[in-house]
């Protein structure tokens, strides 16, 4: 992420120049560290996600209702959405030029990623938690 200063740039005019807030390297390191967890979780999750295709209601619940698939999918969803939120922040940073819209996009991303992670967890718990 970058911050606006009053520095005058020949490229974009007054007040629109950017200086680093030094969040770049921590961001990149965060993506790398989460990806170490996501690689094994992703490969395993792909197997059970593929198993959802064409299944009946009972079939779906049998596929992911067991402890191992449920726990792996749960971890994949939560770590994945934390990673995805940071990744989507990059994309917004790159493509959304309007500052107001950008601020809203960051906020929408934050809450969308949290909602997905929370509802994902909730759904898997409802399916797989011991009765």
């Amino acid at each position, binding site marked *: 992420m970058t911050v606006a200063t009053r520095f005058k740039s020949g490229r974009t005019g007054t007040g629109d120049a950017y200086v680093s807030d030094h969040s770049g390297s921590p961001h990149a390191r965060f993506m790398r560290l989460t990806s170490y967890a996501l690689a094994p979780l992703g490969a395993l999750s792909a197997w059970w996600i593929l198993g959802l295709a064409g*299944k009946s*209601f009972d079939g779906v619940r049998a596929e992911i209702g067991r402890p191992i698939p449920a726990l792996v999918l749960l971890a994949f969803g939560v770590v994945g959405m934390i990673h995805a939120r940071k990744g989507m922040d990059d994309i917004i940073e790159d493509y959304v030029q309007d500052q107001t819209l950008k601020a809203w996009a960051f906020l929408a991303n934050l809450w969308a990623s949290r909602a997905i992670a929370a*509802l994902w967890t909730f759904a898997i718990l*409802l*399916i797989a938690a011991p009765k």
Partner: protein
Amino acid sequence: MADADTDRLAARRPLSPHLTIFKPILTMMMSIAHRITGAGLYVGMALLTLFLLGAAIGGGAFSAVSWIASGFIGNLIVLMIVWAIFHHLLGGVRHAFWDRGLYMDPQGRELLAQGTLVGGILLTLLFYICKTLAS
């Protein structure tokens, strides 16, 4: 120069990358594909969340979301998600090599780019075949 002039000139200056000018090369395409699959997985996870919620609640809720994973569209969605996971995962592995300064020469980086593309498709096919045989 007046601010207005600066702004006007700045607006006319071309932005990089120039989509229509650069020759598409494989490493560049795979970089772009990493971003597309990342954003695609975001949407995919949202769809799967709806599907899982339906499966958690049952009854009408399940019928309302079952299209996400069954029928032609549903099978396509699931297959696209699985491919996106593998493609993006291998993209991450490629980054891990490059982060360590490995495979950065012309042949090496081309190999990693090809590996990402072919590997993503092969792993998807392999999983699909094994899953079909297993069920």
